[in-house]
């Protein structure tokens, strides 16, 4: 009987941490809202209404916002799983978007299917190329990837600014953005009357594929070993963990690149400077909240998507500034770290 209880507790533990963190975050956020003179009930009510109030709100706002978070979250998880601290999903996302847009607007005569395949490939290649610099610096010079990937984000941002103000600027020359991509390159809505595009499906498929890959294939197993214990990987004599890490890093960049292009092809139709409000950074929280599990990243991306979608409604309907939502996201990360530390201390105390 006790054995059974133990087993259940163990099975629940991975879920318990994020749930506890979420609960703690809501409690602290409620207290802060009350201190700030807002009614927590009204604010949360508006947030939930805004995110889940109707099918259309859920599909067109929450899931649309969740899509880039899902993709970048998966990108981050792939790298983190292998022990490569890729903080550069933001830059890789921009690089991927730029590559896709550049190809799409310079090849309007291509058929839809060809253009779809080509732009996806270009975006993945763009994101991977952006990850290549930190990978090379890590391999050749031993420079830590946390710094290089972070700095490459700014390079990508400035490159995007330069391109949309110069070579890729719209032909009207009014705004700092590119021309609209050809209709053939755009992703159609999944349901008529909503804004949810096929990119979300791509994210779901990718999550499922990564889940299978990580848990069921020898390649995915190697990624996990390389991340969990490079020394054990070397000692196994079966593979070179450094190589596995490099490929995971590259794949991470490619997925982040896809996220950028999917946002353009599914939502904006154009590339402009402010394409990403920092998804590449929020992605880290998304991935960590899901404990790097591809399936759980779907859920955590939807949670963050709902926060984003509901934030606007909260501002409109409850008069709570949207900055509160950003603060809540940050709180969630802090709570996650605190809970994780708490669990660790508790399990140490046992032994």
């Amino acid at each position, binding site marked *: 009987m006790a054995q059974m209880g133990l087993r259940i507790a163990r099975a629940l533990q991975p879920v318990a941490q994020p749930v506890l963190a979420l609960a703690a975050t809501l409690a602290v956020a409620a207290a802060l809202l009350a201190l700030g003179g807002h009614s927590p009930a009204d604010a949360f009510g508006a947030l939930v209404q805004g995110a889940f109030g109707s099918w259309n709100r859920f599909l067109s706002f929450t899931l649309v916002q969740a899509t880039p978070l899902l993709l970048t979250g998966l990108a981050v998880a792939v790298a983190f799983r292998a022990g490569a601290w890729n903080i550069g999903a933001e830059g890789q996302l921009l690089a991927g978007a730029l590559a896709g847009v550049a190809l799409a607007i310079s090849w309007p005569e291509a058929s839809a299917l060809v253009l779809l395949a080509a732009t996806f490939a270009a975006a993945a290649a763009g994101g991977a190329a952006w990850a290549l610099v930190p990978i090379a610096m890590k391999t050749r010079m031993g420079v830590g990837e946390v710094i290089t990937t972070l700095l490459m984000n700014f390079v990508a941002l400035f490159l995007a600014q330069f391109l949309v103000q110069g070579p890729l600027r719209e032909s009207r020359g009014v705004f700092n953005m590119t021309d609209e991509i050809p209709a053939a390159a755009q992703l159609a809505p999944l349901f008529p009357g909503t804004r949810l595009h096929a990119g979300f499906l791509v994210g779901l498929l990718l999550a499922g594929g990564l889940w299978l890959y990580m848990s*069921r294939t020898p390649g995915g197993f190697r990624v*996990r070993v390389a991340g969990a214990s490079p*020394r*054990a990987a070397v000692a196994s*004599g079966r*593979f070179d963990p450094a190589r596995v890490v490099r490929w995971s890093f590259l794949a991470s960049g490619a997925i982040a690149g896809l996220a950028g292009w999917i946002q353009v092809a599914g939502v904006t139709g154009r590339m402009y400077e402010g394409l990403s409000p920092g998804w590449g950074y929020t992605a880290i929280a998304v991935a960590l909240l899901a404990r790097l599990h591809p399936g759980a990243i779907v859920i955590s991306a939807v949670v963050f998507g709902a926060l984003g979608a509901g934030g606007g409604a909260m501002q409109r309907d409850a008069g709570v500034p949207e900055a509160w939502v950003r603060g809540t996201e940050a709180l969630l990360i802090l709570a996650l770290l605190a809970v994780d530390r708490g669990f660790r201390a508790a399990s140490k105390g046992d032994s």
Partner: protein
Amino acid sequence: MNAADAHGDAPPAARLAGVTKRFGAVVALDRVCFELAPGEIHGLLGENGAGKTTLARVLAGLLSPDEGQVEIAGTSVRLRNAADARRLGVAMVHQHFSLVPRFTGFENVALFNEGAWTPRGRATPGYRAHVEARAAELGLAVDLDMRADQMSVGQRQRIEILKALMSETRVLLLDEPTAVLAPKEVERLLAVLRRVARSGTGVVLVAHKLDEVLSAAGRVTVLRRGKQVLAGPARDFSARELAVAMVGEPVGRDRFSDKISLESDGRESADVVASLTDVVAGSPEAPSLRGVTLAARRGEILGVAGVEGNGQRELAAVLAGVLQPLSGVARVPSKPGWMPLDRGEEGLVGDFPLDENVALALHDEPAFRRGPWLDWSGIKKRTKALLADADVAAPGPEAFAATLSGGNQQRLLVARELDRSKELLIAESPTRGLDVKAARAVRRRLVEFARNGEPPPAVVLISPDLDEILELADRILVLVRGRLLPVGPSDRSATAIGALMLAAGDAVGRR
């Protein structure tokens, strides 16, 4: 040499009384008494894991004892950290130096010495001259303007010693200072230490090389498995007596030797499954293996004795095929079994369940693939079989490796590695840290493994534990300073091998 006598009436510079230090179930120091007179060089001897470094770290305030007392200059003290010890005049030169690589010698000396800096963070005027004078006084040849990362190991060590001796020092602890030095540098170091001792500082020289200690130390203390087994004036003991004290008396463990002489003829023509010829490996500047030649034959346990740090890790890695020699030829089977030294970090992944740890060795075998997928149910089945077979106390294949005791981890590792290796198994200190029962089980498995099998595999047993080598090995080599010395059948005793291990008995090796 007899500076200690000159300070005869002064209280000891440092004293440990009945000090016990435990790490979990391991007793690193067991009611150890130790006394250091002012002005003496005290040799602290013992095999790896005997407790030498632990003792030094207790004195340096880095570890607090579980029982017993620490006295500095006759006063009982409680050292909470290294700074406490430093204030009382205890300085330690660690095995791995702690210099800032990008700083010059002078900057490193000045860094942690009060008085070197003005409140505004500038060097105190005249401090540089002070440092130079002190270096000259101690006879330390140092280049104060060279960056630490450009210095040789010897130069870095001298900076480290100068750093320790810039302020008033009663006790200077050096942890294996000679391990990293060339013979000529050892001479210079010992000359410096003699000078330091003459000025009244008590010097503790932690070492496992007997000749060096005997040439410098006035008194010696020998630790064995955490216990003080011998203490007294160095001149009262021969190198051989010290060697025996360190490795223990031979107690009827030559029982295998008859069998070996009987069977060795039959083995001459047996298959060689792995061979190294003049292998040099490690860092190019200071290779850890310096021309190693050996052959591992089927059905034989080849014992490699020797104190850790003499090239053991590199030898294992070369045999396992994960380290390429710098020169020489290594012919090793692909994917041999390997029980690495650090089983928690290298052998197993603590955060993984047991079946995934078994998969680590099996995941590329066709038998455990189903198309592109890993056959987890097959792996789980194999894991259960291994757990049962090796008598591992674990709830099941889902248990995390880190939750197992060291003994059970090792049983699993043994089972896994024996299961996969058909030609060669490398076992590094396979019973370290295990209790008697678990150690016995592991040893029995190794012997059965090497004797059975069709054809039987070869086992290379690398261990500093002489008892283990003598009990298990058919043939023994001693790895000393990156070279292998053979042990003839008549030298199969702890004394003879111990002397070889400590490189105090070159004559034995040449005979």
